């Protein structure tokens, strides 16, 4: 499964995308307006037919990024290029026809389906909105879809509450697939599910992707799930993309210290897999008042003075491997080695971590 496919070319190009929110807070009376940079200057490409995984801690901007690419929210700045056109310039009407090509699957299989409508209505609505099918034809199409996602076509008249969590997630997937989109943002589609049901839905996504040639942005915080399903993986921290590469390279040879630390502490279902844990100290700072220079420097074991002054550039440090760090890890170098070798105040930095 080779993922770097320059021959196929990107389906979407995201250029310097920003989404800022104005929030209340700050100031003595909490009235001063603050700017929260939920997504801050993110650039990357999504290749045709790939599954691009997106990981990062809560609040780092994954969902906001996904929503802004689809223009479910209007970005503050940047471009999303699709078929040589910046869709951020599209009119309402143009967006409407684009909707057919781009869909979203949400995390919450309970909240995202209207409880007062039947499954048939919920999915069938997609055809009606776009004037593609109605009546008996619509019903046939919806029933085909239900079977495609592994649900009984006879459940056409059932209501969401009559389904289990996993089944509801299948309904959400069927709805997203109704118009045969090219691109899907799957925002934590399996996070709310029990493991034994989670694997069923993961399999469904893998199969559908193969059969329909879907391109998918797969957002999740479970690193094992993302690793399993993705061709390439992007890592976000505090509104920024800090690393992006093909899956094996990210998981075997991470370049960014954040990625390396994150991977070292994944609880693994294998007591034999004793590994060197590097536990980051401290908390993720508030996105409303991020640190100067590199966002990650307050928790980074490799940070130097330079990191507090200069924002690290997003660049291709190895072939096809993008990182934003002044001191990325070399291929094959572990974070622990890097901590031990670099800088003269290595001891102080060791102190900043809990090693196990």
């Amino acid at each position, binding site marked *: 499964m080779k993922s770097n496919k320059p021959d196929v070319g990107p389906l979407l190009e995201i250029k310097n995308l920003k989404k800022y929110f104005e929030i209340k807070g700050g100031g003595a009376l909490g009235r001063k307006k603050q700017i929260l940079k939920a997504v801050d200057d993110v650039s990357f490409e999504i290749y045709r037919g790939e599954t691009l995984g997106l990981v990062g801690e809560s609040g780092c901007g994954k969902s906001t990024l996904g929503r802004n690419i689809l223009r479910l929210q209007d970005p503050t700045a940047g471009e999303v290029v699709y078929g040589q056109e910046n869709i951020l310039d599209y009119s309402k009407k143009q967006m409407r026809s684009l909707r057919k090509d781009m869909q979203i699957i949400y995390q919450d299989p309970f909240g995202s389906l209207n409880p007062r409508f039947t499954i048939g209505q919920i999915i069938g609505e997609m055809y009606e909105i776009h004037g593609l099918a109605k009546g008996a034809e619509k019903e046939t199409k919806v029933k085909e879809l239900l079977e495609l996602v592994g649900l009984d076509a006879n459940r056409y008249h059932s209501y969401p509450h009559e389904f289990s969590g996993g089944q509801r997630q299948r309904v959400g997937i069927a709805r997203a697939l109704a118009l045969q989109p090219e691109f899907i943002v799957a925002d934590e589609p399996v996070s709310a599910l029990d493991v034994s049901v989670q694997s069923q839905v993961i399999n469904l996504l893998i199969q559908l992707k193969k059969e329909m040639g879907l391109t998918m942005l797969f957002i999740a915080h479970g690193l094992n799930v993302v690793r399993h399903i993705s061709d390439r993986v992007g890592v976000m921290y505090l509104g920024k993309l800090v690393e992006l590469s093909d899956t094996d390279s990210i998981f075997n040879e991470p370049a960014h210290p954040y990625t390396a630390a994150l991977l070292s502490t994944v609880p693994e279902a294998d*007591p*034999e897999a004793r590994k060197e844990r590097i536990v980051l100290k401290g908390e993720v700072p508030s996105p409303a008042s991020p640190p100067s220079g590199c966002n990650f420097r307050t928790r980074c074991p490799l940070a130097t003075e330079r990191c507090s002054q200069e924002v690290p550039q997003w660049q291709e440090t190895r072939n096809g491997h993008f990182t934003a760090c002044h001191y990325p890890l070399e291929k094959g170098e572990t974070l622990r080695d890097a901590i031990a070798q670099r800088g003269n105040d290595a001891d102080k930095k060791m102190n900043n971590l*809990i090693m196990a």
Partner: protein
Amino acid sequence: MLKVENLVTGYRGKEGFVRAVDGVSFDIKKGETVCIVGESGSGKSVTSMSVMRLVEFENGEIISGSIEYMGEELTTKSNEEMRKIRGAEISMIFQEPLTALNPVFTVGKQIVEAIRYHQPLNKKQAMDRAQELLEMVGLSEPKTRLKQYPHELSGGMRQRVMIAIALASEPKLLIADEPTTALDVTIEAQILDLLRKLREEEEMSIMLVTHDIGVAAELSHRIIIMYAGKIMEIAESKELFEQPHHPYTKGLLESVPKMSGERGELLPTIEGTIPGLDQMPEGCRFAPRCEFATKKCHEENPPLESKRGRQVACWHVEEFLKSEEHHFSRKEDSIEVK
């Protein structure tokens, strides 16, 4: 140290009485960390809430069975007696630390109260001890934290405060119910690290309740696998992962994508869904989803018994293990052919 036998706990709901935990037996030894692992509705939290006798406050009721702590029967204790035990002997931490802390009191006041509940210290001494505890759980700037209110702290900090309060009484048994589920991965790593230290340094017994088999693998000596209100299997952690003896355990372990597994392949799955409390199957609860199920499985409930040196509740352990061996030797063959 803790011995639970044939515990049955139920809830009164709209649909009448349902048994959330149905005949559960296990024990925890001194200094041992035991994990109860299960999916939603498996009864893992209800089990821990029963040990603390907290189910009664949530419309629940321990219907039968015994919970013996250090030789004393807990199920027949009065509320007053239980409160003493909860304050001193057994402590509990929960998934959502915000709801467990009192929002109108400072962190310091809450810890001091917990300390003075069972230690004759004056305010000043208790405050010093509180600060010590916050340092012990790795909270930065403990002096400042003492003066703060719960909502001024992050989720990870609140969980540390909860752990500090739980440790205030120097309990012999710590019950932790999904202590990291609500936390971010890097914060989860910090809390797991803390629990690991406590386990090693404090000689405390820990009962950890989690849905995450990875967390269980990292921390526990023994693992209890629950499904639909019953225990399916109990094993030493290492042995469980080496060779599950119950078809459900195997299905559960295999359906989790491994960090070193083959990517992009279809994952092994357990077909079907977890039964609701009001539609429990007769016989073995796992039978409707089990590939080894026979008529007997659908009719008679298999007891948790010692089989092949393992505690397991399944009528067909032998057949299951045989098929595993078969599978395994087939795998070996194919490697040789290559």
